[in-house]
């Protein structure tokens, strides 16, 4: 029984961490954690709705 953490997961966009419990050569439990905060929802408050797409188009 061993617990491993892969952080960062490479060859993706952004930051992802995976923790996994491995038993008998197989994953028996796993946790996915995004280690980066994204605050677009907060940034958009109070702005002109016609501008929202510019802020939000890549998320």
């Amino acid at each position, binding site marked *: 029984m*061993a*617990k*491993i*953490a*892969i*952080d*960062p*997961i*490479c*060859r*993706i*966009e*952004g*930051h*992802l*961490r*995976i*923790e*996994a419990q*491995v038993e008998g*050569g*197989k*994953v*028996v*439990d*796993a*946790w*996915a*954690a*995004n*280690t*980066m*905060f*994204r*605050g*677009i*929802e*907060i*940034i*958009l*408050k*109070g*702005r*002109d*709705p*016609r501008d*929202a*797409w*510019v802020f*939000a*188009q*890549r*998320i």
Partner: protein
Amino acid sequence: MRSVEDALQIEIPDNARIIRNLISGIQYVQDHVVHFYHLHALDWVDIVSALKADPAKTSTLAQSISDWHNSSAAYFKGVQNKLKAFVESGQLGIFANAYWGHPAYKLPPEANLMAAAHYLEALDWQREVIKIQALLGAKNPHAQTYLVGGMAIPVDPNSQNALNAGSIAFISEIAKKAREFVEKVYIPDLLAIASFYKEWAGYGSGVGNFLSYGQFPNDTRINTENSYFPRGIIKHKDLSKVHPVDHTKIMEYVTRSWYEYPEGDAASKHPWSGETNFKYTGPKPPYEFLETDKKYSWIKAPRYEDMPMEAGPLSRMLVAYASGHKRVKEVIDSVLKKLNVGPEALFSTLGRVAARGVETLVTAEMLPVWLDELAANMKRGDYRIHNGEKWDPSTWPKEAKGYGFYEAPRGALGHWIKIKDGKIENYQCVVPSTWNGSPRDAKGQRGPYETALIGTPVADLNQPVEILRTVHSFDPCMACAVHVIDATGKEVTRIRVV
């Protein structure tokens, strides 16, 4: 965009619909190929092993699966020399950071060399084909020609400065190149590689619930359900029934996420009343492990009817397949036949990879169809591109709310907006990687990555390439990535793990 158009009830002109389809379509094609070769292939392809390949045998292999022109022994010898120079310099560059020589790599050296050659070719190809977005969107990424009510790119056959017959012909040529590479390189490589990894049809099955909002609208109605890839939900891997999508059934939990709701951690919220109150309670870095029995991620946990849902190409293709989409069904059935597996194989890591290829091909085939629609409108004298009736905020109601559905290459994307006195009162995005990368919810249900990993073999704890295979099969996009800086310039969040 669509959430605002829904809130203000603005219907866009047909030309805007078509141009949006074209931009989205080429983005699917480019994104999926880049994912396959540059983000995912190295989980299956051992670059170092390619050095041992016989270029003549590689040529025979390549010619046996495709009539793509770059297939001579001399060509593969050249690629091999390039790779050798890389390895001998000790600077692996783009090929650094992988588990070369791991026993889970199954391809013969020749297949590795072929895939490595196409990895390099795809780099050039993707730069070329995304010119379609650069033309229609002014640049890539972050297209600049969108506009609430339509698009900000003129359509006029009599203007040099507008989309005209000449630009349509130019785009059409690029679309041909896009499709040719998908047909002659991507799909044959996908099938060849998959045939060595068929056991991966037995791993990575995931939550078994699939969400597709539908993509590529066929008409201009707001939030139309009439789209080339259909809208729908599949529950519990049951392909005999496609359920309708009701956006009011989408709720987000923060039980295991670094946020708080006034109602507490057991509560879930629909995005219209969603809140983004961050509250980091995790360990101070550097740390060995997160406190996974408490809060452990910056992603919320969205649920549909309290169920975790998978989003992405596999969801779209399964919903299309189960809805009887003619072309999707043909291509999926032919892929299953070539790999000699049944539809149940789709619910897997391999199925996710295959569905992305199927979708790329079917989408590349649609690019000329949309171009023809645009040309036909122009021929009829319809140059309308923007509906400006409600551009002026004085025409808006005092309060309005709306939602917009879209399928990004990575999956179901929903935006919800509340507008008050001409300003955004609340805006919530539930993005594809929120669905797929979600942590556990109040009931303790795992998210799609977490579920898919269970049962994944790990031969070497220090080189868990198998875990990468399943996680990468979802094409994670955690980015959506902006650090928030508060008014004093201090970073609000600073999470760094070495």
